[in-house]
């Protein structure tokens, strides 16, 4: 479960607050209970004790006063008797509300009844007998019945006094045990508060700081480029969350690093492919070659090859199926086989068969390569060409004096793509170029460029564009054509575009160019 850091801090201090409140409550309850015991003792038990003692004392005093009156000075002692009787009544009334339990009330009632009987005895028998001169008889009545009643009063008074003393003693025991219990609670609460305070001030910050230091270490390691440092934070709060995200970031960076490495490998592959493709174009006065390549990715399946031997210019434009590295590798296989066989002096048909063989051996049945193989006789303008499953090349005739241009696709016998069949067919076609004619070889990227609506550029649009741009210099023509296709595809080209324009200048161009060059050399030597 995830416990946020804020909740931990707020919870810790909240708990502390609760413990402090508990502490306050315990102290308050201790004071309150002490006061309750005090009230019980001072408001009830002690006044009750005093009242009972006073009642008992007043009856004993009454008895003594009456006895004295029987011996001498009767008016004074009788008055004392009556005052004590008044005192007894007073203390009996005071005692009534102080005794609340049924037993005590019954005992108090007995005491009052015994007191009443004593006074009745004195008023109705002793005093009348004394006044009628029968003093000895009065003495006897008082000595016998009166003493019995006083003893009874003293006995009941003793019982009541003992009960009140028990209350006081019990109260003391209650106060002591209550105090002990409160002190125990107080200690428990204090220990709890202390533990919590230690947790909040020592453990929690140390754990928090420890976790943060680990993250700082990991961040430093990331800064150094080390993405393997383990982040072991098991906290379930925000710091734990941060650690999880940081570990994810580590993984992401590692992946990025691998991708960067992959990109570097791709760049190396691209550089190999560039070196393979972009050999210096042969300097042939009778023909001008203008290559144009726009790759969708770093590496691709489009390629071309140019070679001059025995007054013949060989130009090949090829397209390996698929995209990316697989296509690039296939292009390399075809190109290597082609160059190898040609280097051994093989005729065009043999060169193509050799490339087909290499592709059949090296690639799966899905992969294939299409190409146009052309061989231009620089003296005569004769072109012998073979179409191996490729789109036909386009021939732009030299512009007429009025600037208009004619052009068409060179349809001819078709052979099959390389890499599929043992015998792809090797039919050849011959055309003748006049000076100023241009042969345009291209790959399917031009035809398959798609508009936002999903429509392809197609061979019709390509032909129209080539004728429209046909009066331009081949280099400019290429750039304009690519711009056209890019506009059509709204900037989203995901296939390679490769085009090669062979402009035939005619055998006579060689002499003109030789003159131009000697002129240039003369100009240089003058500087």
């Amino acid at each position, binding site marked *: 479960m995830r416990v946020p850091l804020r909740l931990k801090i707020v919870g810790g201090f909240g708990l502390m607050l609760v413990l402090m409140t508990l502490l306050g409550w315990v102290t308050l309850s201790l004071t309150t209970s002490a006061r309750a015991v005090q009230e019980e003792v001072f408001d009830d038990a002690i006044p009750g004790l005093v009242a009972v003692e006073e009642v008992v004392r007043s009856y004993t005093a009454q008895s003594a006063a009456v006895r004295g009156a029987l011996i001498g000075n009767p008016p004074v002692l009788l008055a004392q008797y009556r005052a004590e009787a008044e005192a007894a009544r007073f203390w009996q009334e005071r005692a009534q509300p102080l005794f609340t339990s049924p037993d005590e009330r019954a005992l108090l009632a007995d005491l009052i009844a015994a007191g009443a009987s004593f006074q009745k005895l004195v008023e109705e028998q002793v005093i009348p007998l004394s006044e009628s001169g029968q003093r000895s008889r009065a003495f006897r009545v008082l000595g016998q019945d009166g003493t019995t009643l006083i003893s009874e009063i003293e006995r009941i008074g003793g019982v009541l006094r003992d009960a009140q003393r028990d209350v006081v003693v019990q109260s003391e025991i209650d106060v002591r045990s209550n105090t002990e219990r409160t002190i125990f609670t107080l200690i428990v609460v204090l220990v709890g508060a202390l533990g919590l305070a230690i947790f909040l001030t020592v453990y929690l910050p140390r754990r928090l700081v420890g976790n943060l230091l680990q993250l700082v270490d990991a961040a430093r390691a990331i800064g150094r480029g080390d993405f393997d440092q383990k982040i072991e934070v098991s906290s379930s709060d925000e710091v734990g969350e941060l650690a999880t995200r940081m570990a994810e970031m580590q993984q992401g960076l590692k992946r990025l690093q691998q991708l960067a490495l992959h990109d570097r490998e791709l760049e190396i592959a691209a550089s190999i492919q560039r070196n393979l493709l972009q050999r210096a174009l042969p300097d042939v006065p009778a023909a001008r070659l203008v290559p144009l390549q726009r790759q969708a990715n770093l590496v691709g*399946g489009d390629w071309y090859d140019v070679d001059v031997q025995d007054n013949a210019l060989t130009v090949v434009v090829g*397209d390996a*199926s*698929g*995209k*990316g590295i697989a296509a690039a590798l296939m292009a390399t296989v075809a190109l290597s086989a082609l160059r190898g066989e040609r280097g051994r002096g093989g005729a065009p048909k043999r060169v193509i068969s050799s490339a087909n063989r290499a592709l059949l051996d090296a690639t*799966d*049945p*899905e*992969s*294939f390569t*299409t190409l146009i193989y052309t061989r231009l006789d620089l003296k005569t303008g004769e072109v012998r060409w073979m179409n191996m*499953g*490729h*789109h*036909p090349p386009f021939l732009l005739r030299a512009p007429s004096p009025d600037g208009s241009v004619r052009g068409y696709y060179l349809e001819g016998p*078709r*052979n*099959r*793509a390389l890499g*599929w*069949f043992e015998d*792809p*067919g090797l039919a050849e076609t011959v055309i003748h170029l006049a000076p100023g004619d241009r042969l345009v070889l291209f790959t*399917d990227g031009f035809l*398959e460029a*798609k508009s936002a609506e*999903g429509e*392809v550029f*197609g061979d019709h649009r390509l032909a129209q564009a080539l004728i429209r741009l046909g009066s331009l210099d081949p280099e400019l023509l290429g750039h304009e054509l690519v711009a056209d296709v890019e506009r059509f595809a709204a900037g989203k080209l995901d*296939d390679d575009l490769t085009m090669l324009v062979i402009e035939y200048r005619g055998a006579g161009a060689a002499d003109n160019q030789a003159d131009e060059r000697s002129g240039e050399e003369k100009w240089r030597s003058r500087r």
Partner: protein
Amino acid sequence: MAQQKIDIDVTDADGYQVLRPEGDLDVYTVGSLRDAIGSVIESETPRVVVDLDNVPFMDSSGLGALMGGVRRLREAGGDLAIACTREQHLKLFTITGFGEGVSIAPTVEEAAKGFRSNN
């Protein structure tokens, strides 16, 4: 290259299956067709007609997958035929030489008639 899936409707016909891909067949989506052909190869009647009428665009990867399918099915004793009326694809078949030796017809039934006999 990020692979994308396209829907390929598979129906049983008389002794063969018909695959109807819906969408472009290019380097990104060709995996779906390859997988569908793979399932047919494992079935009892490894014969299939691929109907391309709902494929507006097909590049060299798509064509390659079809050729791969022809090879694999023939090795398994079956065959692959193409039902197609789209000019653009038919042109591609003609240009590359794919069409030679593979039955290509405007309808599924006609294409199926061109299956190579496996006996």
